[in-house]
């Protein structure tokens, strides 16, 4: 029983009151991303039969063009399905449908990245049993998508030669999480004075774990290495 005058005793005994009104500490130790991570886990389970990619880059690096080229190049060999996120328009989903891949558009309105819940809802519109590779084309943004697990197997970061050499240094969080870094638009590298050695050195420094594939979605140069990589990862997942 705590009476006035006992305070020194109370401190020495390390007494912590549990009576209402008293200050106390509540341990929580929970991630603020817990809800998204939970949905991402459910997505991962739902996507267990398909190779799932989360494709990110800055706007205009060529994500959709690469996916169109991939869909056309793998016709008959790999069945692609796409979930694509943009703030507005369904332009990308329309392009990808035309290229032969069933595609669902997420128009986020104002949200600058895709979250697991959005992907879960979009996936309901796809027949996962009829595809081999599920590609999630994220909102064009090198910052925010990094923090959001969507339930993917692989994170692919696209970089165009028109962006110079230092994007990995400027956006380390996204590149640090990359399984694959694709360098796009190699066909115009000379025209923009791209320093290949410097660019690859920067990728290596920030993302030594990433497989690097250089290609041009437009000309098809290097595309085979990318489609071969996908086929190999799919085989490994389904083994």
């Amino acid at each position, binding site marked *: 029983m705590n009476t006035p005058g006992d305070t020194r005793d109370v401190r020495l005994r390390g007494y912590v009151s549990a009576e*209402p*009104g*008293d*200050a*106390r*500490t*509540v*341990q*929580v*130790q*929970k*991630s*603020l*991303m*817990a*809800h998204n991570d939970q949905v991402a886990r459910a997505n991962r389970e739902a996507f267990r039969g398909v190779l799932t990619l989360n494709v990110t880059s800055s706007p205009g690096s060529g994500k959709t063009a690469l996916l169109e080229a991939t869909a056309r190049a793998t016709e008959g060999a790999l069945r692609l399905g796409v979930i694509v996120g943009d703030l507005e328009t369904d332009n990308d989903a329309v392009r990808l449908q035309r290229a032969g891949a069933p595609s669902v558009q997420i128009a986020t309105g104002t949200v600058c990245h895709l979250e697991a819940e959005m992907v879960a809802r979009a996936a309901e519109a796809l027949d996962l049993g009829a595809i081999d590779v599920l590609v999630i084309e994220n909102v064009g943004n090198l*910052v*925010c998508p*990094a*923090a959001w697990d969507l339930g993917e197997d692989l994170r692919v970061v696209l970089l165009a030669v028109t962006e110079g050499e230092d994007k990995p*240094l400027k956006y*380390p*969080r996204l*590149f*640090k999480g990359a399984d694959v870094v694709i360098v796009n638009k190699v066909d115009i590298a000379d025209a923009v004075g791209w320093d290949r050695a410097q660019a690859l050195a920067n990728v*290596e*420094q*920030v*993302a*030594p*774990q990433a497989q690097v594939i250089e290609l041009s979605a437009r000309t098809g140069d290097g595309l085979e290495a990318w489609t071969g990589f996908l086929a190999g990862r799919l085989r490994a997942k389904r083994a």
Partner: protein
Amino acid sequence: MHELGLMLRAIEMAEAEARAANAARIDAIHLEVGALSGVVREALEFAFQAARAGTMAERAHLEVVVVPATAYCGSCDATFEMDNRFGIASCPRCGTPSADLRQGRELNLSHLEVSG
């Protein structure tokens, strides 16, 4: 990055925990934010001022501990603190770039101080 959304979520979680502990007030919210999480302490504090109005945390103070980014070097079998400015994890002992990030991406509600 999305500090306002994060603070709204943190307060939501904090209220649920405080209620479960039969508290009337939240006096302090303690967060652990990784150095590579993309979240800025000042922006969190600013967002907190806006987000706490009308909640159990409206008089609470916010404590943010930044967790340094550390990576593991397989060659040296040891961890090291990374150069946060560039996200470069080159082992200071042997120079090998590392992809094995052990700490630095946290976004945790660590603990609360409550009363009442």
